[in-house]
Every structure is written in structure tokens, then in C-alpha cells.
């Protein structure tokens, strides 16, 4: 994995006003996390918890991989956590947006980032 390229994709994502935080997580690994100063301070606690629990989430994801799990999202307080799994891998793009955000626009933004990450991981 080209960490610099992944970092660039994540930095680009953070330019969208409704992407408050994002990271690429890999099971059992630290993953790629942008400079947290670029995150919206409101979600720093959530992102820390996600980082700490990501291995547990991958356990759940694994159970559903055979059924074609691509995406999970859940609401925490006033935020929505999106988890996009890269196909055939134990890598996921994780992003947090405000729950009142225009979800369709956020989804297209994250989908394009996911597609770029798939290309990077393939290289």
C-alpha cells in the first residue's frame, strides 16, 4: 500500500465540509489516519473510540463478507459513521459526517474515495 497516496485521498476528503473525520483502517494494523488537527474537533472522541474498537468491527464485517457486505453506517449522537469495505480485503474507509448532512452527496464523495483507494491497494 502506498501510504502517501492513501494520505492524499484522505486529505482530499477532509476538504468536504460534511466530512468531519476520516481514516483508512486495516485489521490488526494502525491504519492510515490524517493529521487529527484537520478533523472537526466535535468528533475527536468518536474517532479515537473507533480506532480502539476497529478490530472488533472487523470481526463483525468478516461474518458478512461472504454475503457481500460493502458498507455499514450507524448514528452516534449527532453524527453518522460510514464504513466502506474495500472488496476482498480487510481494509475499510471510515468517515464521520454530521447526521443532518446531505447523505447522497456524502455517499458519492465517499464512493469516489473508495474507488481511488481500491486502485491504490491494487498497485
Amino acid at each position: 500500500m502506498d501510504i502517501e497516496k492513501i494520505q492524499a485521498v484522505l486529505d482530499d476528503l477532509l476538504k468536504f465540509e460534511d466530512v468531519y473525520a476520516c481514516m483508512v483502517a486495516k485489521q490488526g494494523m494502525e491504519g492510515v489516519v490524517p493529521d487529527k488537527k484537520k478533523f472537526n474537533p466535535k468528533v475527536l472522541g468518536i474517532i479515537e473510540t473507533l480506532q480502539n474498537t476497529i478490530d472488533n468491527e472487523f470481526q463483525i464485517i468478516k461474518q458478512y463478507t461472504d454475503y457481500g457486505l460493502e458498507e455499514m453506517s450507524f448514528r452516534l449522537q449527532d453524527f453518522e459513521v460510514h464504513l466502506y469495505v474495500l472488496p476482498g480485503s480487510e481494509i475499510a474507509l471510515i468517515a464521520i459526517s454530521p447526521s443532518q448532512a446531505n447523505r447522497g452527496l456524502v455517499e458519492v464523495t465517499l464512493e469516489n474515495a473508495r474507488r481511488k483507494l481500491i486502485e491504490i491497494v491494487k498497485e
Partner: protein
Amino acid sequence: MTNDSLVNVGFSEKWVAREAGRELASRALAEMAGKPKFFIVYSTIHYAENGGFKELLDGIYEFLPKDVPLIGGTVTGLMIPQGCYSHGAAGMAVSYPNMDVSVCVGNNIKRDPTAAAKECAKKIKSDLSSSKFQNQFIFTFSAGTEILDVPPVGRTSVVRSELLAKTIMSSFSTSQYVLQKGSGREDDLLAALVAEIPNCKLLHGSAIDDVKMLRNYQFYNNTVLTNAVVCLGVKSDLNTAINFAHGAEPSISFEITKVSDDGRIIHEINNKPAAEELLRLINWQEGFFDEKLFTKRFPFFPLGLHVNGKFFIRPFVMILGDSILLMTKVEKGKAFIARINGGSMVSSVDDALAASKIGAPIFGLFTSCAIRFMALGREIYLERDVILKHLHSTPFLLGYCGGEAVYTPELGLGYLNESIGYAVFGSD
């Protein structure tokens, strides 16, 4: 000469406006056989904060010859053969030789759309009067509806206080005619335009932002405009397939029994206060009238109307006390709550394109509603797959707009919302 050299689409995701303009233009012009006859640009709203749209256009004209006319404006998102984007700018360069072109602009469309339409029609007719080509096509792109950001209410979908709602509604007239903030009045604009040039085929899109509906811009060469319509008139030997699709079906029927003078606010449904009656018809609780209403609920329950034998849908925009604000005019009479979902949105595009006989397509121009982009989310790629299935390697440009319309002498004028309209040009 290949199709790609006659028509090409360039795109940029760069955040800095000037750089994006340069990149998209250099990509669009990279394989062109000759100087383009015209250039169409769709851009998301983000460049307003990243250098400004003038910089975007100046960046384009660093590569595009200065005498090539350009029109376009802001959209919520865009689709090109390469992908679907909620951020970026795309441009289509067309250098087809058997073609004459006119571009023009009409101003103050929210105050007097008829005058703007007549001004544009006059220019197009004059410019193209000596053309030896018979097939006339007009593409219009105009300022879409903007909603006032009224303190302390802000940009909201629901104002249930009757007092506040009445204050807002009474400000609409001042807002529309003095500030030119309000309805895009595309229905009036286009009716006046096609009345002047009835033998044309037409595709329309309305400018919008990221669906906040607070601002939008139109592009005319290297000038950035507001409250304007920009028009491209073309006479050529190309055949043009024009059609639209939405995927909605009538579901629950009712009567619109009282509307505002301008037809854009429904006050009563079935002789009862409109908002209350809407809740009853859909079997919703009052709690559904919240801030998710416009972005997450209304897209799937639009208002449906039969006009001249065709079924059209109109999104509910805002609850104002017991009234409901729309983007377009409606009349009293029979209407429906329409039923629509992501699957029917996508399959309707498949059906419409399959029904259009497009011989040897050279390029396609699409305008679709931003609400579809918002409602489909990442599934928007399914819509792209359908378009690619029909157009194969034909270059196309699709903008997700604040309103769209099609016109042919056979179809009549179809002002659309939550739909997709297209013009596909072929040489056969």
C-alpha cells in the same frame, strides 16, 4: 476522424479554481480535431470558496481559444463517462463541422422571464437566420430557485409557526421582484422562449448549489452571472433525440383546492389545510416534518400531476405553517402523491434511452435533478452504467440541476423536476 476528436469531455477534481479550469480545458481539448464550435461547462459550487468562478473560467480560457463561446453554470454534481462527482468541474468541447452556433444571455429572469426569453429568442433567430442547416437545437441554462436564508429561521425545510410562515410568505413578492431571490420561474421563461421559436428542440437545466438552494451561478464566456439565462442555439445536420424520464407513478390521489396567486404555494388540499392533509394522506406523524424532510423524505413522495396527458412530478420544497411551497406553478385540480424509488429512477432512464432511436450517436447532453443525485447517493453509479450501456463510448455530460426541461414540437414543453432530460445527437 473519430467521434472523440469531434467531441471531448474534460474534467478536474482540483480544488483551486484556476487549476481546475486549466486541467479540464486541457483534457477536453487534448484530442480535438479542430477548434470547438462551443464549450459547455458544469461546475459544483465549491469553487466559490476556492478562487471563484471567474478564476475557473479564466483557467479554461488559458487553453480554449478566446473566440469559442462557452456557456454553463453551477450544479450539485456531475456525471461523465469517467465517473460521478460531487465536487469538480467538467467541460464538453464540440467541434462538429456542419453546425452554426449562437450564444446569448438574458438577465433578470426572476423579475421578468418573458422579456429575457424574448431577448434571447431574437438573438438566436437573427444569428442563425442564414444557416443552411435545418435542425435547430437550443440549450438553456438559467438561475434556479433560491430560498431566502431568513434570520433567525435560516435555511430550513419546516416552519410550522403560522405567524412566522405568514411573514415569510408575505416577503416572497419583495424577495422575488426586488432582491430576485426566489423561484427560478423556468416554466414562464421556457414557455416564452418556445413560443418564439416553436420549431426547435430544447434541453434546459437550472443552476443550483449543493442543494442548500442559497446561491447559484451561470457562465457566459468568461463572465459569471446571477439571475440570468444563458442560451446556446445550434443549427446543424445532426438528428437529436430528446426525451425525459423520472420513474414515478401516481399513488394517492387528492384535489388541490387552494393555491397562491402565483401558483407556487399550495394552501389547501381536499379543502383542508395542506400540510395537515398531506400528513394524513401519507399516513405520517407530525414528527416526520423535521429537517430531514427535504433531503431524506420528500424525494420519495413527490407531488404528481398530469399535464397534457403526461405525468410530471414536483418536489415539495418547504412546509410553511399549513401551506406547502413548491418550485413551480401548479393549478387547482387533481393531483397525486407519487411513488418513486431508487430502482425505478434508474430503470426509467434505461427505458427512455432504449426507446430513443439514436443512430450513430456523436455526443449526449443531459440535465437531471439534483434531488435524484441526493436520493440515489452512491447508487448514482447505476444510472451511469445504464447511460454507458446505451451510449457506449459516446462522450456525454450530465449535470445535476435545480430543474430541467425538454421541448420538441411533438412532445410539447415538459418542465421537469426530479427527472432526467437528455439530448443525444447522432449523424444517422
